[in-house]
């Protein structure tokens, strides 16, 4: 096992001892996380590009996977924001694929879960929020601030406007913490149960036999974590769509 501390799996370690270069006074290392992100990017980008052959009308299995993921995201955007949200397809598709692949690559034992880092999830959520704010002001100008003014009597607005404002401002936090915490909790739980298996197995005698119980539990939790890995990528993408919809259409229905 990697160690007794179940949190050790989340440590970002340089794979190359020396920093590659300095950026604004901060040393940049090639870390285990960087390796995973590079792998995710290379594999998903080349997969989605190479399995699809233009003109191949009857898809192969892998081409079907690429097409299904494409249609999944485009349908998601279409149903949440309407057809004018399809301009943001590349952005949402990239977010979905990136988060999904990071989550799934994290399920490989001995690997590293990129999305279990708050820095990464918060940066992604911040990117989403900046996009939303940029799109909102670009589309509605100063009228985008009407987002904070729901349809309500004026005396309620005194209360509602701060609430709306706070809820908007906490979105990047909720968006990032949701993904980060889910990944962190799942992997911590797996590591804790793995620790049980090891310590019970090492205890010898009857206790060694008991090690089968946490092992079985681990298998179940692993299945659940696979579901969570997909679900959190989906939730991240769908919330991005919903926020973009608000930026595009304010409180109106699309």
């Amino acid at each position: 096992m990697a160690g007794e501390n179940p949190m050790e799996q989340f440590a970002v370690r340089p794979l190359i001892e020396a920093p590659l270069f300095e950026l604004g006074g901060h040393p940049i290392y090639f870390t285990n996380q960087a390796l995973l992100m590079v792998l995710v990017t290379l594999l998903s980008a080349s997969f989605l590009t190479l399995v699809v052959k233009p003109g191949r009308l009857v898809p192969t299995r892998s081409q079907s996977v690429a097409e299904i993921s494409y249609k999944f995201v485009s349908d998601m955007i279409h149903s949440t924001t309407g057809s004018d949200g399809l301009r943001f397809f590349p952005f949402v598709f990239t977010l979905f694929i990136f988060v999904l692949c990071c989550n799934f690559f994290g399920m490989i034992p001995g690997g590293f879960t990129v999305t279990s880092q708050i820095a990464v999830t918060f940066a992604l959520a911040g990117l989403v929020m900046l996009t939303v704010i940029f799109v909102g002001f670009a589309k509605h100008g100063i009228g985008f601030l009407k987002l904070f003014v729901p349809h309500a009597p004026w005396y309620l607005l005194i209360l509602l406007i701060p609430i709306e404002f706070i809820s908007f401002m906490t979105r990047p936090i909720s968006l990032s913490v949701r993904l980060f915490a889910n990944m962190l909790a799942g992997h911590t739980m797996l590591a804790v149960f793995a620790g049980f298996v090891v310590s019970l197995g090492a205890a010898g005698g009857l206790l060694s036999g008991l090690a089968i119980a946490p092992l079985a539990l681990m298998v179940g939790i692993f299945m659940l974590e696979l579901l969570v890995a997909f679900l959190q990528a989906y939730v991240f993408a769908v919330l991005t769509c919903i926020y973009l919809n608000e930026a595009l259409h304010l409180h109106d229905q699309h």
Partner: protein
Amino acid sequence: MAEETATHATTEAAGHATPFPPFDTTTFPSQIFWLVLTFAVLFVVLWRVAGPRIHTVIADRRSAINKAIEAAKQARADADAASAGYDVALAGARARSNALAEETRQGINAEIAKAKAGADAQATAAMTAADARIEASRGAAKAHVADAARDAAIAIVARLTGETVSADDAAKAVKG
């Protein structure tokens, strides 16, 4: 130097508890740098290459399917039109054949009627001629009978009375 960093790392690990790894801010610059780099690369590839490729394939398939459906509809319309044309042609042919049959029948009937009329006329003429002949024969026979009776009467009178009666008288007597 490597020794120095190693001892530094171990003293740090042993000295105070390592921070909760995800909140270790010293790793943030590297994390953000690689995230921005890889995400940007993935975005550009998906935006410029993979997305359009998949879109093209899906659009091509949709248009191929629509084209095939159009072609099938066209073929069905063609078949329907051909079938309608066939029906019309069949009805026309049937009408023509009926007309032809009718015409032929009428022609034959007319010929039959003509032939019958000719035969009737011939027969009538023959009958008339025969009647005339019969009438002539009857007249001749009647004359013969009168002559015979006259002759017989002359002969009877001659035998009974020994007188000779003139032919005219005898004829008058026989007739009277």
